[in-house]
C-alpha cells in the first residue's frame, strides 16, 4: 500500500473543517433538512447563536456551506460538491484497503 491521490489536496480544508462535533452536526443537519436559518440551527445545540455563526463561517471558508437569502431571513445551505470530492478521496483510500485485505485473505486462507 501507499496512498497519494489526486484531489486530496483540495479536500484537506474540508476534512479539517469537519473535525469538530458541532460543525459535523451543522453540516449533517443542513444536508438532511435543507437550508436552515441560524435560529433553527441553534435550536437543539447547547451553544449560542454567535457560536453557531462562527462555526458556519469556518464551514463557509472551506466551501462547505453558503448563505442564501430566503424571504426576509438569511438561510444557510450545504454545498455538496466539496463533500462529494472529499468522499471520493476516502473511496480511493478505501479501495486500497480492499485490495490489501483481499491479498491478506488469500494469504491466510491458502494454507488452511
Amino acid at each position: 500500500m501507499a496512498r497519494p491521490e489526486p484531489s486530496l489536496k483540495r479536500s484537506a480544508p474540508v476534512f479539517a473543517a469537519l473535525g469538530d462535533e458541532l460543525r459535523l452536526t451543522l453540516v449533517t443537519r443542513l444536508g438532511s433538512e435543507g437550508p436552515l436559518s441560524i435560529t433553527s440551527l441553534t435550536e437543539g445545540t447547547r451553544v449560542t447563536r454567535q457560536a453557531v455563526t462562527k462555526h458556519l463561517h469556518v464551514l463557509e471558508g472551506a466551501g462547505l456551506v453558503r448563505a442564501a437569502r430566503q424571504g426576509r431571513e438569511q438561510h444557510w445551505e450545504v454545498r455538496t460538491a466539496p463533500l462529494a470530492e472529499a468522499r471520493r478521496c476516502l473511496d480511493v483510500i478505501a479501495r486500497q484497503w480492499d485490495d490489501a485485505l483481499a491479498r491478506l485473505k488469500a494469504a491466510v486462507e491458502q494454507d488452511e
Partner: protein
Amino acid sequence: MGSARELLKIERSVVLRAPRARVWRALTRAEEFARWFNVTMEGDFTPGGRVTMESKETAYVGLRFPLFVQRMEPEHLFSWRWYPGSALPADEDPTKQTEVVFTLEEVPEGTRLTVVETGFERVDLQVRAKAFEENTGGWEGQLKNIEAYLRGAS
C-alpha cells in the same frame, strides 16, 4: 445525507477462513505483512516502535514511508499511525497522522478482521504529491450518486 461524520473515517470488515492466531501472524510478522501489504520493510513491529516501509505498488514504487506502531494486543488488536500522504512531511508532525486499527474477532467461519482508519480531519494532505491517475476514470457516475446521496434524495 448519511452523516458528514462518515467522511472522517474508513471502515472495512472481512471474514477470513483462518484461526485468529494465523491472522495475527499475517498481520504482525514483518515478512508476512510485507507480502500482502505490498511493501518491503525494515525492522519488526513492536509496540511504540517505528518501521520504515517502501512501496511496491506500481503507482508508487520506491516510495518510502514510516509507520508508528501503537498497540499490539496479541490476537485482538493491532494499531499504528502514519502519514496518509505516504511521503514523510518535511516537519514530522504526529498531529498530522491518521490512525489505523485492526481488530480480530472469532466467528464460526474463522476470524472477523475489521480495519478502521480515522483522523482525516487532522492530516495535512498537501504532502500528497503523486496523482493516483488510474482512479480518475469512472468517477463521474459515482460522483452523481454521491451527490444524490448527500442531498438525501432517494
